[in-house]
Structures are given as structure tokens and as C-alpha cells.
């Protein structure tokens, strides 16, 4: 079964011309790549474009991947990171930093309590805006480690820096997010309540 194979094995077969292996690999990895680009850019359009670019890159230059240097997932995050940066440099003023959770993600939530649903949505919007307002090198570690749940080692491989750098950036990013959320809570008090309820 192809689904039992590792990413590296699937890539090897795909590069040998196995379309099914490529499809399995794509379906396994496209979600995290898409969400990484989405969290980094705030635009689903940019995220789709980046996802496509990443796997197109894999098709064309997949043989450059060296499994001894790290996992394929971290490699793909690193490629995605570069494409996201290019997309952000192209400056999509009408798309980037929009209101991200209001459309698709919000519709996926099944809310038992409407009041809580509204407050949760406010929380999501506030944290997403806070994440998007972070400087890029802080944002990418938050997205990789906190939202994509990558290990520090994988994040370090994707970003191309030391693990200690990832840890210190993450620490600093959390402090910045905390300040931003406190500021948002001062503006919209429901956020801290929902957060407190989630914690308890």
C-alpha cells in the first residue's frame, strides 16, 4: 500500500514517474503546507498559490532533496517559507492581512452556544490579527511550532537557523502576542473570557 510508505519513499517513487505515489504524497502534505501559507499570509488565495508552487518545485527539483539533512516535511516547509516570502514581497494589499477566519473556517465550527460562538470567533480573529502583525521571523516560528506543531528541530531546518534561535524567537513572539491580546482584550473584553474558559 502506498499510504504505508514514508514521505521519502513516496517521493522516490514519484520521481521515478509513479503518479499514484505523487498523489498520495500531495494529499498527505498539502494540508499543512496550505495552512502554513495561510497563517503566514492571511490569504487563502496566496496559500493555494504557494501550495501549488511548492509541489511544482518538488516535481521539478525533488532530486535535490537529501534525506540525511532532515525530514521531507521540514524541507517542504522551508520551500513554502521562501514562496510565502516572495508572495508577501509582491504585496497583495487587498488580500494579505484580511479577516481570515470569517469565511470558511468559521462555517466549519459547530457552535452549541451562539454567544460563545461569537466570542470564540472574536478570539480567533484577534489572535490571527495578532499573529499576522508579528514581524515575519517571529510569525514563522509561531506558525511552525505552535500552529503546525513542528518540533524545534524541524522548524530550525525549515527556517534555516539554530534550535536555540527558534526557541528564543518563540519566547519573544509569545510575549508580543500576549501584549497584543491584552490590548485586544481591553478593546473587546470577550476574548480573555473565552481564553480563560478554554484554559479551565
Amino acid at each position: 500500500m502506498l499510504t504505508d510508505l514514508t514521505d521519502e519513499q513516496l517521493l522516490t517513487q514519484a520521481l521515478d514517474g509513479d503518479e499514484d505515489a505523487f498523489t498520495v504524497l500531495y494529499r498527505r502534505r498539502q494540508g499543512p503546507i496550505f495552512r502554513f501559507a495561510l497563517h503566514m499570509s492571511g490569504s487563502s488565495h496566496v496559500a493555494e498559490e504557494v501550495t501549488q508552487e511548492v509541489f511544482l518545485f518538488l516535481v521539478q527539483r525533488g532530486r535535490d532533496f537529501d534525506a540525511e539533512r532532515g525530514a521531507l516535511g521540514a524541507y517542504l516547509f522551508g520551500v513554502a517559507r521562501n514562496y510565502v516570502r516572495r508572495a508577501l514581497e509582491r504585496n497583495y494589499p487587498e488580500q494579505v492581512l484580511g479577516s481570515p477566519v470569517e469565511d470558511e473556517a468559521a462555517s466549519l465550527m459547530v457552535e452549541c452556544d451562539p454567544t460563545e460562538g461569537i466570542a470564540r470567533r472574536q478570539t480567533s480573529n484577534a489572535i490571527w490579527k495578532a499573529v499576522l502583525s508579528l514581524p515575519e521571523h517571529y510569525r514563522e516560528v509561531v506558525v511552525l511550532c505552535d500552529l503546525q506543531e513542528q518540533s524545534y528541530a524541524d522548524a530550525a531546518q525549515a527556517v534555516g537557523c539554530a534550535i536555540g534561535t527558534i526557541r528564543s524567537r518563540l519566547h519573544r513572539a509569545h510575549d508580543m502576542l500576549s501584549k497584543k491580546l491584552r490590548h485586544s482584550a481591553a478593546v473587546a473584553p470577550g476574548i480573555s473570557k473565552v481564553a480563560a474558559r478554554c484554559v479551565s
Partner: protein
Amino acid sequence: MTCREFKHSAASLTLWELLQAPDEQILTHAQQCEGCGGWLQNQRTVAASLQTLQAQTAAMQAGPRVERTLLRAFRQTAAGSAPQPMVTRVSAPTAFRLSHFFEIGAYVAVAAAIIVSVFLGIRLLQHSSRTVPVQSGIIPGSTRPLLQKPVVAAHGDSSKLLSAVANNHVTRTARSRSQRRDSASVATATVQTVAAEESQPDADADYVALMFCDPLSCSSDSQVVRMELPANSAAQNSQPPVADLVVGYDGVVRAVRIVN
């Protein structure tokens, strides 16, 4: 546990580990220390917010169009041909379009500058070729040097010299220049010049060359000076003889003509 140890221990944990049940020592210190307790609470708030965001976006993924495009590219690559470029891109941002416009504008400006400089260069060459001193030559059948751009002395007889210059095959430019000088120095001679040219077309034939005239040195400015010869040189004549001397820039007399 000190505050420093608390921060060090907490920093080694991930956000999710802080959100769940951290170390007992950490919790104890957070309860005792207000500052560290507040910090831990803020971190938990951040973790909870990020968890909410993560849960909301967990199901999001790329659309089927991306997969179709990639599979098409994969088949083309597998078939040995280069894959098609990206699908429809987002319209180019205004900044990019403007930069592209300015890039074209820069090329146009450079091309225009080159054309203008070439034009000016040609004009300059033409101008310099006009102002190059006229090469003197030898009149066929005569060994006397040519007179180039003579300056007529302030005498009424300067019209003869002008006609001499004109008949010496001096170029039109040199002639007009000398005529301009004449008009400045001898205002009344201008009208007479034309008549003199017609009546005495070979006035320079009276000049006698006193030295070999190198074409280069003779082409420089010279001046015609009218002077009376010393009385002893004109032995018994009642009137002292008058001569026109063509004096070069170096003060050497090039030619002489006896007027009377």
C-alpha cells in the same frame, strides 16, 4: 525555585505543555510569585487563543484545482517535457506595473540620449571641419604663396586686399570671416570691395613672396600693414614709396607689395 529558574524551566516547555499541566515546581512558584504567575497566565491565554485558531483552520486545505494542475505538470514532467508554468496568476500589483513602466521609460530615455549625443557629435564634427584652417595651395602656374585670411589694415585700399583674398581660392567661410572683420575695421570698404573685386581680380599678383611659405604656418592669421618706406631707400623720388607688408603672427614679413 527562583524567578530565573522559573523562566528557564518555562521557556524549555512548548506552549502546549504550558497549557496542560506543567511541572509542579513551576505551578508552585507561579502561585507564590505574582509576576511569574501573571506571566504564566498570559502564556496560557496565548496558548488557548492559538489553539482556537488552530482548531478553526485545521480542516482548511488547497482546492482540487491545485491538485489537477499539479498532476498535469507531473505527467508532462514524466513524459520528459517541461511542465507548464503556473496557472492563472493574480493580477500584477500596481507597484510592479509601475516599475515595469519606468523600466521601459528608462530604456527610451537612454535611447533618446544616445540619438541626441550622436546628432550633436555629427554637428560638432561638421562644425569643426568648417573651422579647420584652409589648406593653402599653390596657384597653378605660380610659385607664390597663398594669402590666407588677411586682415586689412585701416586704409581705404583694403578692398584690393579683399579681392586678392577672394581670388586666392580661399574658402567661402574664410572669406566671409575676413569680410566680417573688414566690416568691423573698415566700414566704408565693404561696398567698394565688390567693385574692386570685379575691377581688379588679380590684385594679389602684385605681392612678392619674401620667404618660402610653409602651408601650415601660412594658414595662420596674418596681417597686412601699410607702411612708408624710408626716404633713403627711395632715392630721388619726390614721394616716399608706400608698401603693403603681409606680416605673419610671428612678426616675419611673408610678402610685400609696392603700392606706388
